[in-house]
């Protein structure tokens, strides 16, 4: 879903950059308030963690494989603003080192795969988890559904940007992208739920990070 340069028009890219720059500036402040100078090593190592976790492929239907995006996971474990910060770092390195996602399109990519999934994922998870009386069940169902939904939302944002730029027609691209990613997102949802089950069983204190 990393949009390369040239696929979105200049105005769309510019709006993306403005939105991303504003959010990241605020995210830096919000995380700094929460954890002070500890922010620097911790966020750096956790960004490297998301990057490394994305290397683990899992099988999807028909012999293809997918990998985790990790935005929902980062937001649920660290809170939405720290999640945005971590995902932004991952996307910058992917663009500058692997050309995965364009330089001018970086803002749009941060919006699609950082800002949107972190906030949608985090609040959806909190909402669903609070409906269950049993904590473990709530955490697993909430994180799974939230992670699945963030993948769909990211693809919707991507489709809308491409449509505004005139690259794809909206009325076909939107349902197609959302449909395909609703399938891909199942893996993301199940893995995220499994990760949270493990963290809950071994280091439940880490799940309280976002509240601290």
């Amino acid at each position, binding site marked *: 879903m990393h949009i390369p340069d040239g696929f979105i028009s200049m105005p769309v890219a510019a709006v993306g950059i403005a939105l991303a720059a504003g959010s990241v500036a605020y995210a830096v402040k919000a995380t700094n308030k929460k954890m002070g100078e500890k922010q*620097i090593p911790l966020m750096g190592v956790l960004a*490297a963690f998301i*990057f490394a976790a994305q290397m*683990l492929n899992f099988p999807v239907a028909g012999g293809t494989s997918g990998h985790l995006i990790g935005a929902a996971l980062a937001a649920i474990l660290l809170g939405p603003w720290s999640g945005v910060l971590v995902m*932004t770092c991952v996307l910058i390195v992917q*663009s500058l*080192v692997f050309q995965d996602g*364009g330089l001018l399109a970086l803002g749009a990519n941060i919006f699609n795969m950082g800002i949107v999934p972190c906030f949608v994922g985090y609040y959806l998870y909190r909402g669903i988890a609070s409906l269950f009386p049993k904590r473990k069940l709530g955490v697993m169902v909430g994180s799974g559904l939230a992670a699945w939904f963030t993948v769909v939302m990211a693809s919707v944002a991507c489709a809308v940007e491409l449509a505004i730029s*005139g690259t794809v027609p909206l009325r076909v691209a939107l349902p197609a992208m959302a449909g395909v990613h609703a399938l891909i997102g199942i893996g993301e949802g199940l893995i995220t739920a499994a990760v949270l089950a493990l963290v809950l069983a071994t280091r439940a204190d880490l799940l309280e990070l976002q509240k601290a």
Partner: protein
Amino acid sequence: MKHSFIDEYSGLDSFIHRLDPRTKLIASLAFIVAVVLTPASNWRVFAFYFCIIVALLIFSKLPPIYVMKRSLVIFPFVLLTAIFIPFFKEGEVAGSYNVWMWQVSVTYSGLFILANVVVKAWLCILALILLSSTTRLADLLKSLKQLGVPQVMILILSFMYRYIFVLVDEVMRMQQARDSRNFGGRRLHQLKTIGNMVGTLFIRSYERGERIYAAMLARGFDGQVRTLHKLSFKQADAYFGAVFCLVLIFPCVIWW
């Protein structure tokens, strides 16, 4: 384990490698903006930009095969755009095919959009490859800082860069351990295994982050990071920047 997949060719020596990273970053961004802003169907302009970037790639001594392989990153998006081409209904029909049960017709305007997007994306990706393969990431981060990216972001990014190698190693060891224990079986079981691996990786990373912070505190870290190496803006950079700007504007002057 060794990971040469990050800035693999940045250690080569050429005229492009020696330029100040800021010059290269701004020049790449200017090039990408120029390409994206070029109105559709200006094939002469695209050809002109293509010649520039190929000339620079030759100067930089990057292996052509490596550049070609790297530029394939845009392929999934090209495919995605190509799938939707038949759905642009307006315009003259270029060809109509019977695919299985559907009548698929491709219009000229649809093909036009595809060709345009592919050319632009490819030019931009070549510029980005040139930038990232001739500059060390550490230098690129330093130049980002001087161009106004907040210091905290730069520090986080440098930490990330430092620990990518460590954590990728960790993932590879985990994969090796998993595969040597007959990984496979039902899909749900596989997903659960990967979930456990990611969870373990998270806990280890978090604990590592805390240890690093403690080690930094013990060595007198006060939230400030001081570096010795300074970037130097040389005369060559000024010349390159000026010439490159003129070259970028050149097509607008003569063809518009």
